[in-house]
């Protein structure tokens, strides 16, 4: 059992939790994730470690309501517990220090940039965070990210906040602008379509780009092979070799198709949970 110390809604479909997990906090690194279960008979789902506080023995996660399990998680409050939390799993983000690193976050992905940007800024790297959302209310953690990265660029599809347009358009501007504002490396975390678009944006410029793949996982320990992602023509296990891979080598088409394998079953499970937050799954996925 892992106790929830704090919980706070960030948007109607995302919630931030601080968990009492000293062992995980002690060894977590940027880019890693935990596997969690809410209840007996529940699914094991992977959730990124957004941040950790070794001294306090806590980790922070941000969960976006996508289906049955994430809704059950988002219904929990401080004092409640998660049945199982195992981690940290996966490999840490491997980027050489020095230079200008640009994190691109969409949806819950923004949260995953917190510890990465804090660490890079502390190393003395130049850091930029580009946050994307459909509209102003769905932008998360902009203030927290502003504290840990040198600059934060908010982009909204409808122009209600910051740059009017997609994260990739803003990223393209930074690249075209040249000079110190041009990133040397990009880390994109968010919906698969966004990560693919980022890959397409940086590819012609040969900018090193990592994406955090989120395939369906079962164990998260390298035992089932369900999380395999095709990278450079080779099957790689996201839970062991990833979840971050070279964006220019990833076969996104296959990854996106594989993530839709259980849409029918997910709908059944989700309908059983009902609308915890009063929103339908349609709204939740649009919120991406």
């Amino acid at each position: 059992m892992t106790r929830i110390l704090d919980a706070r809604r960030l948007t109607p479909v995302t919630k931030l939790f601080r968990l009492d997990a000293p062992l995980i906090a002690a060894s977590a690194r940027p880019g890693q994730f935990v596997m969690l279960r809410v209840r007996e008979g529940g699914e094991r789902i992977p959730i990124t470690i957004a941040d950790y506080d070794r001294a306090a023995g806590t980790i922070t996660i941000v969960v976006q309501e996508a289906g049955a399990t994430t809704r059950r998680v988002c219904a929990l409050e401080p004092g409640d517990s998660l049945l199982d939390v195992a981690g940290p799993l996966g490999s840490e983000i491997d980027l050489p220090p020095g230079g200008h690193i640009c994190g691109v976050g969409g949806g819950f992905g923004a949260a995953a940039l917190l510890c990465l940007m804090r660490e890079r800024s502390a190393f003395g790297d130049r850091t930029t965070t580009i946050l994307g959302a459909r509209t102003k209310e769905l932008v998360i953690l902009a203030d927290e990210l502003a504290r840990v990265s040198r600059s934060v660029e908010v982009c909204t599809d409808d122009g209600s906040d910051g740059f009017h347009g997609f994260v990739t358009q803003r990223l393209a501007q930074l690249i075209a602008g040249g000079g110190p504002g041009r990133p040397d490396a990009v880390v994109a975390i968010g919906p698969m379509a966004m990560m693919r678009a980022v890959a397409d944006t940086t590819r012609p410029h040969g900018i090193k780009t990592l994406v955090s793949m989120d395939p369906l996982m079962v164990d998260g320990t390298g035992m089932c092979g369900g999380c395999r992602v095709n990278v450079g023509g080779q099957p790689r296990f996201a839970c062991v070799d990833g979840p971050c891979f070279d964006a220019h080598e990833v076969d996104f088409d296959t990854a996106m198709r594989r993530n839709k394998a259980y849409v029918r079953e997910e709908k059944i499970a989700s309908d059983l949970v009902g609308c915890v937050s009063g929103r339908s799954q349609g709204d939740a996925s649009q919120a991406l």
Partner: protein
Amino acid sequence: MPVRRFDKTPMPAQEAQARAHNFFEVNGGYTAARAAFEAERCLRCQHPVCVDGCPVHIPIRDFIHAVAAGNMTGAARILRSANPLPAICGRVCPQESQCEAECSMGGRFDPVAIGHLERYVADWERTQALAIEPAITKTAKIGIIGAGPSGLVCAGELARLGYPVTIYEALHAPGGVLRYGIPEFRLPKAVLDWEIDILRAMGVEIVCNVIIGKTLTLDDLTNRLGYAAIFIGTGAGLPQFLGIPGENLNGVYSANEFLTRINLMRAYDFPNADTPVRVGKRVAVIGAGNTAMDAVRTALRMGADEAMIVYRRSDEEMSARVEEYHHAIEEGVAFHWLTGPLEVIDDGSGWAAGLKCQRMELGEPDASGRRRPVPIPDSEFVLPVDNVVLAIGTTPNPLLTRTTAGLATTAKGCLLADEATGLTSKTMVFAGGDAVTGAATVILAAGAGKRAAHAIDAALSAQPH
């Protein structure tokens, strides 16, 4: 009664048509009468060669004699003294190539049904109220990595010797392959849970959700947490793929994923349990070991109309337990021997629609001594299937070795360990089971755990205090 001496007393089993659609255990277990009858078949050999066939040298003659004499308590005690997992091994050991292969009754007649009797005694024991109390007398703490059979047995032996033992398990439940791999219809979870309850009653602590190499390193265990010795029983759980086109289509599973979804995550109970699995009308399982047999029979139970084995060698080379093979035939599993898979065909929407294969013939023996399958030219054909399950083998999981300095491995990633003691290249770090041997058997893993426990005890007893 001549029949009595020639043939094994049959094991009562669920009728094939019915059991192919449920997850209840196939075998019902001997009745007292059948067990007594079978025990009487044993010749009580002066030199019980059967024992040579058992990797942990159970005094087979003696426990069977005790059954024949109606001394169940004695039989259970003899069994347990040599094998801490009798209820499990009686069910899943490949007896036909171990104890029963050596039995003097074999050859002309059926060998004594040693496995069935072992199971009978262990199941009897399960009905008894066991008064177990922790008897921790020593102070040196032992850390065990992995709660599969090797780790469980090592823990049990050490606890019996008086050591405080903690098992760290990566998943949310202990058991290893016994929980996530071998299905309920062969090894009921209640049997496994009972064995684990005994360990807990003996004082063994089991900590789930801790991945050594990630949550804690092996060196943390020895340096920071003060474990005097470590046993590694992390298994060989990393599935292999074929590298054929279409392997990443939806509906293609490794056997580990397929079985884990169903066994550990209870997808058979979806949507009461949250993890789904998609089993179509026709399922092809590639491979012919125990894993393949479990996957193909599970597919039937999950509602497939047709479930088939596709194997590039012949039935001669099949490595599954012979009883499972016979059960699979009775349940209606189809077997495509000498059939090599070439490609999984796309249905046009990213799902598997067929398995393209070619026929093979057996050529010269290869390095393993088995005749090498050679493709027959122009023999390609397509099996229409909705699922393909790959059961072509596993390799050791690299999570621990990647993060532990000084832990020597073979080229295949298996841990190097002394055969007699399990000692690895690191001081006071021992290993056993599939992590050392590559995918093998429950009893070999259990035996390795037991040997390592005694080696650990010997090493600690020799240390100055």
